[in-house]
């Protein structure tokens, strides 16, 4: 019964975050525009060499997701800070993990929606052809997004108390994201190249392990970092 109440709370936070985001609109538009802009800048920097573009596609895509996603995480807590709503949120008679879970799911949906926009742009811009089919590539994207969002949601909560949160979040998050970024980029590159070394599966497994570690650690530590 208590778990059912907690799941209702998780759904309430997801609903509240997405409804607020949908109504403000400016947030998602800005984040998506930044993602596309980063891809365009990578395209200009790499020049018209088709091979070079294809080789760099996976890295450019993940970096675009990463930079744009950081803005999304900051916004997720900005919603609470704007109306000083974080304190009331923390004072509901709910275990703190429900807040993390709600924020995590809302951020994951936000990032997946973002990917729906910038992945097609990357495919066109970098002239990508998936040698190993699109389904495994989507799977790797999902795995990479879960790890990225788990860490991003966790560190955004930590930075939300700071006045310099916009600067602090990337400083905290990016070093911790290196394993996820590396595994996701390698797995994606391998799949786009047709998985010639058969190593995409190994990278994907590593990515799954990172996801589990980051999710469990974030759930356990959230109660302490969100405390004033």
């Amino acid at each position: 019964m208590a778990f059912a109440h907690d799941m209702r709370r998780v759904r309430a936070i997801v609903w509240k975050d997405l409804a607020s985001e949908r109504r403000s609109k400016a947030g998602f538009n800005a984040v998506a525009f930044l993602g596309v802009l980063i891809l365009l800048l990578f395209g200009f920097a790499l020049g018209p060499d088709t091979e070079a573009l294809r080789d760099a596609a996976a890295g450019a895509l993940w970096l675009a997701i990463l930079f744009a996603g950081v803005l999304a995480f900051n916004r997720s807590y900005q919603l609470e800070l704007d109306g000083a709503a974080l304190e009331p949120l923390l004072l509901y008679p709910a275990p703190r993990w429900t807040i993390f879970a709600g924020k995590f799911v809302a951020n994951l949906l936000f990032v997946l929606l973002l990917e729906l926009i910038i992945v097609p742009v990357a495919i066109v811009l970098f002239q990508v052809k998936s040698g190993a089919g699109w389904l495994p590539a989507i799977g790797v994207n999902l795995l990479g997004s879960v790890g990225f969002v788990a860490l991003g949601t966790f560190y955004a909560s930590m930075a939300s108390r700071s006045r310099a949160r916009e600067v602090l979040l990337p400083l905290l998050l990016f070093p911790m994201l290196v394993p996820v970024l590396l595994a996701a980029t390698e797995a994606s590159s391998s799949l786009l190249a047709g998985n010639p070394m058969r190593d995409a599966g190994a990278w994907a497994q590593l990515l799954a392990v990172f996801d589990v570690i980051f999710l469990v650690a974030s759930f356990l530590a959230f109660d302490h970092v969100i405390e004033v």
Partner: protein
Amino acid sequence: MDFGRAQAKSLVNIAGVKSLPARAVEEARLYVSASLLRILQTCATNRVNNAPPPTVKLDRLSRRFGTRWALRAVTLEVQPGEIVGVIGHNGSGKSTLLRVISTALRPSVGDGWIYGHHLVREAVTVRRHIGFLAHAPGLYEDLTATENLIFAARMFGIAEDGIEGVLERVGLAHARAERVRGFSAGMQRRLALARLILGAPRVLLLDEPYNNFDPQGIELVNDVIQDVANAGGSALVVLHDQRQGERVLDRVIELNRGALVVNPADVQPLTFATPSGLPA
């Protein structure tokens, strides 16, 4: 004299220790005796007073921000039905006191209980009992008034069918479908009050609750406080001017630089009961 010796030996047997120095057994005996005595004293006091336990109990509650002590060893008991005003200058620790009791802040030193539940160890249970109205309304501006209350009801873990009634009570039924972004400060305050009522708290923690309210709003706040007190709950109301809440306050405490100001007139002289049959 042998009171506790058997218990001490039992404990030693339970611990599986074959032999123990006599001094250790004696210390254990004293410890058990003292513990039993404390329990008996507590039972006796409760039976004599026949008083319900306090709704709020603070024992040397202190909170430090960096090197500055915002709250210093506040000891306080609030009884069921009691409405206590908290006054003091700016920075005297009034808001910090409420935030520590509300579990928004952890105490640096000291303990506190709400209906016997510890502020830190049983924080989730404590939050079921309290209703905290802070300076800022803490609402979601892109949601409507009803949506804000639907969210609150789901987070409280209660049904949503009381929302319409609460909106009626705070006078916001006409604005139920409007986004909070367009609300005046007074309307936002009323909606924050509606959220507080929705949670059906037993202990109210109100930080300058009359701010931004018109006379009808002030009456509404007083009614809410009185309702909770009549139902056996209690309230701590932070005020700049105690005249604002004089209609409802039972007593007023003052904070100065984080410490409770003790009025010499309130201090009871120490008295010692004379055992019957002995000359005074």
